[in-house]
């Protein structure tokens, strides 16, 4: 019962923080330096990882799908299946998980340490709301970086699949056929659905990790605990929310 109340209290104050952050959106243009800094940090931290992982996910998908549908003589559809599953599902979720690991954890660690060492208090006494100064640039940065990550992930995933189809003997599907089947079935809606999903994940991850960071109190030991908590909560959020949002989008 107490835990439930705490959960509601936590969600309530999180929503409050989110709304407060949104209310400072007009100040964004003059925070462009901080925004750029955050975009670069987030990009550097995640793009290579997302690319490598997506490549292998595409590749392993090709193997699995090739193996399962070979007997039906339907191998020309491998491209379609990989294409759709990357765009609609795997890329958004993989991106979200990488963002959790690299960005969410870093945001929580940074904000929690600022909180514990009273830097957040200092900001408040200087009449600089932490929501405006700390949360907003990070939130805006993730919104800008997510589409890039998603595209990187989708494209490298497709390439991973293509490489396997072309060079694995028992599949032996030409790149032309692979991309033709991919192109003919994927609609722009699939891309926007994937993007909506990825953006919602990104915003959620950033709000959760900022909120957990800013609510940290106590000593330096709490910083580590906050980071762990943020990663766990974000991954749970992504996987559960994924089901519901997919249900809505389909």
């Amino acid at each position, binding site marked *: 019962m107490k835990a439930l109340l705490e959960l509601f209290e936590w969600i309530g104050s999180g929503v409050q923080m989110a709304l407060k952050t949104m209310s400072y959106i007009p100040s964004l243009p003059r925070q462009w330096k901080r925004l750029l800094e955050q975009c670069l940090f987030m990009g550097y931290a995640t793009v290579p990882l997302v690319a490598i992982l997506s490549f292998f996910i595409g590749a392993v998908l090709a193997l699995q799908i090739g193996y399962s549908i070979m007997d039906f003589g339907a191998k020309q559809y491998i491209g379609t299946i990989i294409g759709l599953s990357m765009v609609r599902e795997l890329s958004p979720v993989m991106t979200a998980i990488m963002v959790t690991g690299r960005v969410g954890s870093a945001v929580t660690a940074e904000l929690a340490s600022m909180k514990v060492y009273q830097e957040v208090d*200092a900001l408040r006494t200087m009449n600089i709301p932490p929501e405006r100064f700390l949360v907003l640039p990070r939130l805006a940065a993730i919104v800008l970086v997510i589409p890039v990550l998603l595209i990187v992930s989708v494209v490298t995933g497709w390439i991973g699949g293509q490489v396997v189809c072309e060079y694995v003997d028992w599949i032996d599907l030409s790149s032309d056929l692979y991309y033709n089947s991919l192109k003919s079935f994927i609609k722009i809606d699939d891309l926007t659905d994937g993007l909506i999903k990825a953006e919602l994940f990104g915003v959620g991850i950033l709000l959760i990790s900022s909120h957990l960071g800013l609510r940290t109190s106590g000593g330096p030991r709490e910083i580590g605990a906050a980071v762990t908590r943020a990663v766990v909560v974000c991954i749970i959020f992504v996987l559960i929310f994924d089901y519901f949002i997919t249900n809505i989008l389909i």
Partner: protein
Amino acid sequence: MESTVTVEPVSVSIENLYKSFGEQKVLRGVSFDVKPGEIFALMGPSGSGKSVLMRHLVALEQADEGEVLIGGEPADDPGTQGNIRTAMVFQAGALFNSMTVYDNLALYPREHRLYSETVIWEKVTSVMRALSIEGAGRKIPAELSGGMKKRVSVARAIIMEPQLILYDEPTSELDPILAATTTELIATIARETGATSLVVTHDRNLALSIADRMALLMDGKLVFRGTPDDLRNNNDPQVLEFMNPTIDPLNPRFRKQENDV
């Protein structure tokens, strides 16, 4: 200091303030006033609640009971925070660790768009000179000594051109000479800008030499309030014990146990 801006000083009024953390009653009915432009020193043994009291003035703590007014307005009212500039020198510095010293100092005027970059540069440089931290502009706080951090955090407060400055132990961690310089500086800032100053300190020299009035906090209550001269002539045994420099004020004998409330 050059380029000092005089400000409209504000009064501080604390009325019957109570604050507990869980079972622990930290403040148990504290009342005092600080007049506009005055230097008020608040002394007391470690753990007596001085920092907690000060945090009420910048709305970092909410009172359980009682009133905290700045310029006649409740300190935790967002309007008051917007209208009255209150700067706080934190006991532990609370510098922004990811920024250089210069950026730490320039943050307030930049964020509130008070001056152009050139003017900010001039102001920051002049304050840094006054505090003898000229060389530190490009360093980050982690590269500073404890005493330098303290002075950077004093500098960061002065740059705000505050109407009320709260100093939490401004001279701890400083050698005696720097402590004396800083004490002098606090008096100078108050004189030149006209700001109201509330200084929390263990440093008897500081309190006795520059305070207009002072108070002594023990076990969550004020046991003395008056001028430094009143304090020198005070015969209350608690006050004598605290003020007698041969006795260590950290000695548990002079503090009640925390559960003894």
